[in-house]
């Protein structure tokens, strides 16, 4: 321990040596011969150093024992020059982009030359990730990586899902594994509640983007096979920033300030009042009332006497909904201190983020403290220590299909209800609202959810250089956090809120802990024999994950607003209070052989032992093979002025998956009894002091074993015009078998499901990445980065007798997996259609007839996605614009339906609803036929057309196509040129203007931003149910180094 202590602090203090000295001068130039200003010049092994002047010259006093000078500068390769006898040392530095033979970080943190890889890896650097300074790092990946689909669920700090190359399992998680500096971390959470409570963030939100050096996306089993059981969905590999050896200590400071608002706002009609069938009603949810002409009505009610006798002059309140929202503020600050000698490097940083939501009482605050040190103990041993502590606290609002969600009906507040100004509560805090749901302002203020996470992620790693050709690495690390979530439901809440307290008020406390320990050791042997290179990696990994979860509800609040459990009359623990422990032991080997840079062959195998299966089924072996041929190296004649590089690669790899989502599923259990029917009434035990147990409806299965996913891919990489045009296309097919899921069965057996290895899935996809530099001059360049993602996931087989799996949603609509169809289809009831013409069938009243059963009504999976970044650099100005185009993908939009069927959307007043004499107008005609096949000629009124018997009679009517074109991110930055900075203490100063979701065109999706998902991170996509709206943000930033 003491040694570790010394090690940690030793790196900070530099031994200063005082010896005989002499002065060396020189000039530093770049590859074009231009002077490099502000380059650091350090005597190797000391802190003695200086920086170059704007003309590139320097003068430095060097101690007598100074052996070498180290030159380093931003975006330049570090150069080391031995100190001889000469008094003048010039140095030539080349910019890093060019010199890099594109080294990418691959599995286990192994750096490899991308040229020799047999599989696809996309790496993003810090600048690419942080352009728009999103709160959740997951969102920063959107549209940037081919083969990756990021789906936000609305709101700036809710969950966002990442899907790499399609789905690999049915009901378990399809989210990739996150690895930080070699330690797998937890990215759970991010689900949105369907009926109760607030949505939560996926835990990747704890990561400070400013601490990230690079992010590698390992796509699918081939790239990730070394990570074994957890890697079938791919891996997001994060490498944090480190101090650089030989660089002078420096301080970096950055700050950004953004405003966020609702990205897209519905257009409302302001012509017709609250009511029904043209008649005013103070309790109607809808705005199908009379035309507003300033008439006097007995309006809503007097908020103070709770009677509906108050007369009021009828008026429209155009901003009654928009006033609910405010500007959110996103403020981020980062301070880092880093540097290093040739032996020791260090980096400390502190990050602060505060993001207020577009609804009041919604805020997230995050603090990150990070330390990164590395020390060469001697010629053989390097020890590195990395650690991040983060504290993440937030306040949130009720979500879901419930009366306490302020947006459940808030979007269609009657046009003539003065929601903004009418009091929402009386002096005692009792809610005042004539409609059935909670007043939006009241529920935002009073039904509160807050959470706090304290998390530590860190590792110690040892690198031993045993011989010239053999080294050993050992790393042990942890990800541990505790989460506390607290919810308070006010007395008088009409919705379920968090605790379903039926209006008597409730308090919920959730405490959960996550703790993983990961130990990983491997040997790397590298041998060169003439033109042949061989690398062998052999290692073993052990991981243990422990979680626990405890929830306690108190109901019957006694003193208003006193948010403690002891302020309630009854307590009930959640039936699912639980803990789990899983262990995974893996042995792996990775063998690569290469000939020059012409071809390489790679074989990987891994054997896992997983505690989630019974002995006998718990040890399983899998492997991967890949190869690449560089045609331009093989046939040098192919190289021309046009073609620089042409490579073909391919691989086949299988990963076994431990089914971490099915821990303890090898047995069946009794569970605490309860009763509920989905309408709110609930019985909890102990009931009148008596405890009850019931056999769990889901049965376990001792025969469970691993799932396997096999990926086959071929790719072509092409580089033209000296790297000005690079192109990479990959085609893959991925099959997953033995998928574990709770196979539903007839409830008459006494159980409703049995967990089984039952299904098969397959994915087919193409992804494309190109980088084009159309213009490159001394002071101006233009880069286009383009990526294309297309994949389809098919449900090839479910269990015998099972035609579908219910992934989420309601009776109608819901999201299902259906054998033989694409993954996650939207099901619901539909319009009856004429067999001949395919037209809707209407009844004699001109309104559609609907099917009684449910059928497929939509496909939420996009056809393809395109991301394109245009970057323009002019001198030290840089402009970057990221365009995100998504083609296809259906969504069931309840918000949109609500706006229309309740008569608030502008199109519902497109035609006069009544003529001057008050006669109901019937301007709408369904393009339909009667049951006998003759064309429909029965016109209907606006209320009928847009109503629950018209367009929205069937779930099919709620389906909207979500194709979008959006400017996802844009940033403009300006760095002060070094000539201006030379007289300041700053080595770098950059100003930026940036924004996210700046423009949206969704041609088929009116009124709202289609980027929403009722179920957050879930395999069920395509339902939109009164969720928080997507936001647009714009901000300014400043970055300083000195």
């Amino acid at each position, binding site marked *: 321990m003491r040694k570790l202590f010394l090690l940690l602090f030793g790196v900070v203090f530099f031994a200063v040596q005082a010896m005989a000295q002499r002065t060396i001068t020189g000039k530093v130039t770049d590859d074009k011969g231009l002077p490099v200003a502000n380059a650091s010049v350090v005597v190797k092994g000391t802190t003695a150093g200086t920086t170059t002047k704007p003309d590139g010259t320097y003068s430095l006093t060097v101690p007598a024992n100074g052996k070498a000078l180290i030159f380093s500068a931003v975006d330049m390769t570090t150069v080391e020059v031995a100190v001889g006898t000469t008094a003048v040392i010039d140095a030539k530095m080349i910019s890093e982009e060019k010199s890099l033979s594109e080294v990418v970080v691959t599995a286990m943190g192994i750096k490899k030359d991308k040229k020799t890889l047999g599989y696809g890896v996309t790496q993003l650097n810090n600048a690419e990730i942080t352009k728009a300074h999103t709160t959740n790092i997951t969102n920063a990946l959107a549209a940037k990586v081919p083969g990756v689909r990021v789906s936000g669920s609305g709101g700036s700090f809710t969950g966002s899902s990442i899907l790499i190359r399609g789905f690999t399992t049915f009901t378990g998680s399809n989210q990739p594994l996150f690895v930080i500096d070699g330690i797998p971390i937890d990215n759970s959470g991010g689900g949105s509640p369907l009926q109760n409570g607030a949505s939560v963030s996926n835990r990747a939100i704890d990561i400070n983007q400013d601490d990230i050096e690079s992010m590698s996306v390992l796509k699918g089993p081939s790239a990730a096979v070394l990570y074994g059981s957890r890697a079938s969905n791919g891996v997001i590999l994060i490498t944090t920033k480190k101090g650089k050896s030989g660089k002078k200590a420096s301080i970096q400071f950055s700050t950004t300030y953004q405003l966020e608002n609702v990205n897209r706002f519905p257009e409302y009609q302001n012509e017709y009042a609250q009511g029904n069938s043209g008649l005013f009603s103070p309790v109607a949810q809808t705005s199908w009332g009379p035309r507003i002409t300033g008439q006097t009505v007995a309006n809503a009610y007097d908020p103070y006497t709770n009677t509906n006798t108050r007369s009021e002059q009828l008026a429209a309140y155009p901003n009654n909904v928009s006033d609910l929202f405010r500007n959110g503020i996103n403020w981020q600050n980062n301070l880092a201190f880093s540097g290093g000698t040739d032996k020791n490097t260090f980096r400390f940083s502190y990050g602060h983020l505060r993001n207020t939501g577009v609804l009041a009482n919604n805020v997230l605050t995050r603090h990150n403290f990070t330390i990164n040190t590395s020390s060469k103990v001697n010629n053989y041993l390097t020890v590195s220590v990395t650690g991040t502590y983060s504290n993440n606290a937030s306040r949130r609002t009720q979500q879901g299909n419930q009366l306490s969600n302020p947006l459940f009906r808030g979007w269609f507040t009657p046009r003539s209800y003065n929601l903004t100004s009418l009091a929402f509560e009386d002096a005692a805090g009792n809610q005042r609202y004539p409609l059935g749901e909670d007043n939006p302002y009241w529920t935002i203020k009073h039904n509160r959810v807050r959470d706090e996470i304290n998390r530590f992620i860190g590792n110690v790693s040892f690198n031993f250089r045993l011989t010239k050709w053999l080294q050993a690495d050992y790393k042990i690390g942890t990800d541990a956090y505790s989460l506390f979530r607290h919810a308070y439901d006010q007395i008088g809440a009409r919705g379920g809120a968090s605790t379903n307290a039926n209006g008597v008020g409730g308090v919920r406390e959730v405490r959960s802990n996550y703790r993983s320990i990961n130990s990983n050791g491997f040997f790397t042997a590298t041998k060169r024999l003439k033109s042949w290179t061989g690398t062998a990696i052999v290692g073993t990994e052990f991981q243990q994950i422990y979680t626990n979860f405890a929830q306690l509800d108190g109901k019957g609040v006694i003193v208003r607003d006193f948010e403690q459990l002891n302020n309630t009359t*009854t307590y009930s623990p959640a039936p699912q209070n639980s803990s789990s422990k899983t262990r995974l032991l893996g042995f792996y080997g990775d063998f690569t052989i290469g000939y020059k840079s012409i071809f390489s062959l790679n074989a990987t195998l891994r054997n896992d032992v997983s505690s989630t299966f019974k002995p006998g089924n718990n040890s399983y072996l899998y492997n991967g093979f890949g190869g690449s041929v560089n045609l331009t190296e093989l046939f040098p004649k192919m190289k021309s002025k046009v073609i620089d590089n042409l490579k073909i690669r391919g691989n086949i790899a299988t990963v076994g998956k431990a089914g971490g989502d099915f821990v303890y599923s090898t047995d069946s259990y009794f569970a605490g009894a309860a009763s509920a029917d989905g*309408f709110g009434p609930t019985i909890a035990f102990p009931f*009148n002091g008596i405890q009850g147990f019931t056999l769990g409806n889901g049965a376990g299965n001792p025969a469970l074993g691993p799932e396997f996913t096999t990926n086959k891919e071929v790719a072509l990489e092409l580089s033209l015009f000296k790297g000005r045009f690079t192109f990479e296309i990959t085609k893959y097919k991925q099959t997953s078998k033995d998928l574990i899921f709770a196979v539903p069965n007839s409830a*008459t057996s006494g159980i409703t499901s*049995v967990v089984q290895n039952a299904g098969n899935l397959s994915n087919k996809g193409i992804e494309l990445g190109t980088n084009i530099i159309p213009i490159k001059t001394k002071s101006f360049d233009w880069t286009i980065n383009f990526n294309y993602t297309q994949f389809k996931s098919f449900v090839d087989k479910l269990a015998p007798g099972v035609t579908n799996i219910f992934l989420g949603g309601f009776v109608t609509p819901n999201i299902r997996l259906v054998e033989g169809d694409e993954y996650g289809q939207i099901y619901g009831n539909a319009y009856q259609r004429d067999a001949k013409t395919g037209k809707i069938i209407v009844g004699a009243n001109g309104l559609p007839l609907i099917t009684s059963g449910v059928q497929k009504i939509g496909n939420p999976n996009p056809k393809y996605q395109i991301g394109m970044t245009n970057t323009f650099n002019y001198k030290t100005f840089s402009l970057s614009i990221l365009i995100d185009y998504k083609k296809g993908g259906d969504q069931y939009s309840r918000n949109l339906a609500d706006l229309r069927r309740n008569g608030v959307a502008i199109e519902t007043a497109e035609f006069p609803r009544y003529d001057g004499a008050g006669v109901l107008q019937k301007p709408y005609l369904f393009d339909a036929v009667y049951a006998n096949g003759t064309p429909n000629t029965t016109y209907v009124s606006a209320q009928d057309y847009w109503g629950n018997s018209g367009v929205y009679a069937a779930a099919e009517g709620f389906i909207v196509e979500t194709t979008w074109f959006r400017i996802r991110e844009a940033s403009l930055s300006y760095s002060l040129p070094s000539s201006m900075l030379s007289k300041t203490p700053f080595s770098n100063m950059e100003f930026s203007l940036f924004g996210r979701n700046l423009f949206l065109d969704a041609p088929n999706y009116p009124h709202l931003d289609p980027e929403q998902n009722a179920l957050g991170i879930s395999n069920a996509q395509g339902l939109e149910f009164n969720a928080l709206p997507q936001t647009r943000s714009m901000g300014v930033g400043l970055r300083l180094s000195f």
Partner: protein
Amino acid sequence: MKLKYIKLIVLSAGIFTVSSCKKQFDINVSPDALPDSNSPIEQLLPSAQVNLGFEGGSDLFRFTTLIMQQMSGGASQPNQTYEYYRHNITGSDLNNVWSSIHATTLNDLELIIKQGGASPYYTGIAKILKAYEYSLVVDVWGDVPYTQAQQLTANTKPAYDDDATIYPKLIQLLADAVNELNASSSVLTPGANSLMYTGTWTAARANWIKLANTLRLRLLLHYSKRDPAFCVAQITALVNTPSIQFMASNADNFQMRFYNVANQRNPISAFEVSRPNYLFADTRMLNLMGAKNDPRRAFYFTDFPVGSGNYVGVSATALPPSPNNNYSRIHTFLRGAVVTPGVGTNSAVYTGDAPQRMLPYAEYCFIRAEAALMGAPGSAQQFFTDGITASMQEAGVPAANITTYLAANGTLTGTNAQRLQQIIEEKYVALFGVTVEPWNDWRRTGYPSLPVPTNSITGSVPRTLFYAQSEIDLNPNCPGQKAASLQDRVFWDN
């Protein structure tokens, strides 16, 4: 540090990791749940009773009370009750209750029956409750799995039994139950776990036995349409056996108690809280009561406007523009005492501790009255009077008002058909809040006559409900979905 030592450290670290022994990976048993190897029958019984009681005021209650026009959803568009009321009760709407009945209630009962052999007091109660629950299943759906049901993973797609063959088994189950309850000893005695009948075990046991026998009468009465002679003969045999005890007062009511505590409230009342404006009084029920100035009305329904003494219902044949909240709502009889009175169209706040009634003593009286009318022993008139009296007393009607009511409406007159109508219409009012049985009576006797709601999608009043969509999807042995008209008949409805 010498290279040698470093090598040693690396090697030992490797061995340490590798040498984790096999036992370390055999840890996949949840430390937080009871394994299925040993059934906790003492805790299964409370679970089964509460779930059965809850189901009594849940989906099936709502579907049948709406079909029977005791309550209306006709003013509640766009809520589900509006659809139910117009007979748009889809297979998917039945998923929840189908699963709850079979995989929770019946399964808990079956585990007690299978594993509680040494404790006949437990198995006896379990068999009564199973017979009750299964009779509802048959009454609603007709053919259902019986002989192959509840076998857990051993058979996940049970075959279907002819509903006519299930009823006799249920009646036998009740006879067996009585024998088991009369056993001289039992390893476990229910005690406080007998939630539906409380008190000393001796007292509770007598109640359970009375329930078993009364339930046999209910099942036998269901044969009245299919085979009246069989019905009369069987009931006669039963009531003539002196050792067989039946319910004798409201104290014997088969009901589930609920409490004025969060999550322990009557499900009908809890539904009114979580889904206000989904259910209002129906004119069919109100008119029937209003014509006789029935004093139970003030306990069953709220007046509207509050304090007016007027009872306003939704008419199936003259539906108002929805939504409209200007109607009478469910009142104290099904919701417990008023805590805070209602104002305007807002509902009052109730304690929610009304019992969930499933087979009250009043029903026994009406069963006997009807049987007597058909030729079974006893005085139809006396049982008729007793039934009305019991129901009124249960509702809290003062004795004087009962007397007044009986004087005006308590005499059976006219033809047998007219007398039957009188009995069933009184039973219909008395069984307000009882799930399914009023619908059974209507299907057997046609009383009370029901108008078809103007917007009914079936065009006539349903005689069955769809199988749960989940069952259609998951059980290949299911005979297939019912006809869309919902006019398929269960065996005793022919």
